């Protein structure tokens, strides 16, 4: 009951005309960003954060705008998967497997409607799940001391690396790189570290600069390398009708996909890509040889879309309750919260309930708005896909520059952003995941802080780190999460995915 009254309060915060307007804009922008190949949830939200500040929005409004964008990108990713066989973002990869065959059979409209509804089911139910699970997890998180938090951060890095890369050493290095960069600047005792005497570096490296550089600027180099071959020209869809029979036939699929996706989202480090992958593979084996998976089965569109949207909601759970993001995009959302001076964690639920519940209410609102936009109005977004890359990428570049420039007004941050862009390109070529770098920069100082506080409490006794059952459990999960993929990778093979230029965005 308490949950319901909290939710009612949240709707009170989120249902003002202006926030509704923001939610509407965010959903619209988000769907476009998701649909455009090359722009996905992480870089889409990243380049919009500085602009949200430039608008002078308060915390709730900024959150409403950017969560709408986040959910919108999850809906939008499917559009180019279905029409072009190019995933608009990484989580939408699995949707190409059956979505594009459906489009080739002249059923593009049906595929868009089914996937739109599946997206809605997935994200709506996972937001309900968030409402139920988050307060429980927040009450457990109360028991966490510095030792547990240190182990939790370690768990986040171990699992994130394990899931996102095919080479553990490289993903571990990515985390180290991020952590190492986080150390630049004054430490919590006010001593400068790794600044080389450069005054610009005293405040540390702004994580927004790193995020925009690694995600958006790096994408520009990728596009220049490929000359934007994967552009969309001449896509048409016929009259939209609602395929009730297919929707009915795939309702079970959507529910199963939602369940799996939500679990994948809650697990630290897994994220939406794994959610859609698991949902698709599970559905394929559930249906067995009766299905026509890979040849245009509507269930093959419904499952991954329900899965990735449910994971998007699930990933909010650890981010809000523990301050540890479960995916690349939630890492960007965490960056947003930190810039707004909001520290996610159990205390947030107690001290600033209006922010948490306002955010959750705005997720519900965003879902309804997105369903309306993405089913009857999907043709508008199909038109947007026609924007050629030689217009899109300069636009992304300039929006990134202006956004970063508006943060600090210094050319130094812009140069740093370009450096991160070049770094991001090289890392991507070498198959080093960039999400752990971001996570390292975001969490580095908090991680060091928890370790130092743990050592203060125990007066330098290292065994304190393993002194509670929760801490030991987290250490075991971290070790398991890091080691398991090495063995699982040999057993589970990814299904063939469309070759071509996949977006940089690791969900």
């Amino acid at each position: 009951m308490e949950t319901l009254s909290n939710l009612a309060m949240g709707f009170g915060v989120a249902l003002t005309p202006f926030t509704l307007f923001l939610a509407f804009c965010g959903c619209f922008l988000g769907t476009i960003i998701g649909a455009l190949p090359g722009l996905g949830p992480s870089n889409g939200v990243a380049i919009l954060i500085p602009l949200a500040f430039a608008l002078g929005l308060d915390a709730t409004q900024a959150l409403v705008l950017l969560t709408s964008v986040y959910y919108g990108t999850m809906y939008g990713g499917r559009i180019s998967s279905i029409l072009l066989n190019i995933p608009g973002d990484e989580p939408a990869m699995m949707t190409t497997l059956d979505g594009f065959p459906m489009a080739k059979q002249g059923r593009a409209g049906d595929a868009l409607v089914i996937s739109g509804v599946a997206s809605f089911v997935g994200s709506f139910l996972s937001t309900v799940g968030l409402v139920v699970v988050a307060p429980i997890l927040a009450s457990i998180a109360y028991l966490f001391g510095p030792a547990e938090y240190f182990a939790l951060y370690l768990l986040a890095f171990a699992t994130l690396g394990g899931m996102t890369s095919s080479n553990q050493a490289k993903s571990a290095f990515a985390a180290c790189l991020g952590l190492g960069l986080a150390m630049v600047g004054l430490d919590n005792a006010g001593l400068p570290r790794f600044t080389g005497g450069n005054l610009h570096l005293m405040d540390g490296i702004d994580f927004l600069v790193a995020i925009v550089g690694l995600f958006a600027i790096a994408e520009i180099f990728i596009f220049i390398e490929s000359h934007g071959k994967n552009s969309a020209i001449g896509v048409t869809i016929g009259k939209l009708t609602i395929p009730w029979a297919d929707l009915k036939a795939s309702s079970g699929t959507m529910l199963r996909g939602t369940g799996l996706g939500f679990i994948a989202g809650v697990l630290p480090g897994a994220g939406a890509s794994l959610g859609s992958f698991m949902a698709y593979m599970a559905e394929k084996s559930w249906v067995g040889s009766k299905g026509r998976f890979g040849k245009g089965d509507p269930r093959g569109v419904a499952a991954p879309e329900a899965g990735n949207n449910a994971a998007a909601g699930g990933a909010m759970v650890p981010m809000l309750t523990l301050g540890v993001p479960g995916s690349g995009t939630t890492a960007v959302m965490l960056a947003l919260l930190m810039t707004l001076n909001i520290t996610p964690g159990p205390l947030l639920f107690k001290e600033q309930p209006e922010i948490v519940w306002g955010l959750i209410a705005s997720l519900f609102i965003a879902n309804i708005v997105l369903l309306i936009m993405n089913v009857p109005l999907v043709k508008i977004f199909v038109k947007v896909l026609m924007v050629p890359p030689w217009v899109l990428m300069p636009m992304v570049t300039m929006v990134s520059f202006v956004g970063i420039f508006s943060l600090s007004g210094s050319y130094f941050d812009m140069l740093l952003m370009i450096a991160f862009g070049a770094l991001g390109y090289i890392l991507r070529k070498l198959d080093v995941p960039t999400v752990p770098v971001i996570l390292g920069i975001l969490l580095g100082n908090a991680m060091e802080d928890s370790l130092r506080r743990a050592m203060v409490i125990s007066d330098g006794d290292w065994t304190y780190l393993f002194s509670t059952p929760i801490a030991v459990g987290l250490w075991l999960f971290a070790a398991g999460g890091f080691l398991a993929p090495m063995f699982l990778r040999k057993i589970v093979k990814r299904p063939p995915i469309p070759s071509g230029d996949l977006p940089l965005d690791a969900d």
Partner: protein
Amino acid sequence: MASDRIFGLVVVIGALAYFAGALSIQTSFLSDPLGPRAFPIGIAVASLLCGLTILARPDAEPDWPGRPAWLSMGVALAVLVAYAYSVVPFGFLVPTAIASAAIGYLIEPKAAQSAVMGVTLSVILFVLFKYGLGLGLFAFPRSLMG
């Protein structure tokens, strides 16, 4: 193979440099048991292990682009750096138009099309940022604007 060997070597050298950097951090008397050096040293050691692992077990050679693509990306990098230096002294419109046109041209080499796009984009974004979002941008060099 070769790329990963070089990459691993760079990581190892970087980790050693970071280690040396961590050792030279000033400490104060009023420090906690761990102090400001321990965590960076831990990061350096972990990176060193990663670098050695990458050296020992390199992945297959990545699909590097050819010489023309490297040249294009180098030009793009130079354009972006020049843009970062010039947007404040020269105002928003001109550097943005040139940089946008250059990036567009590098993606699809059609000069006229890129030039038109650059100018149009620059004007649209200026209006959007200045009057839509209220950012304090200057259209032209401040010295010319008086």
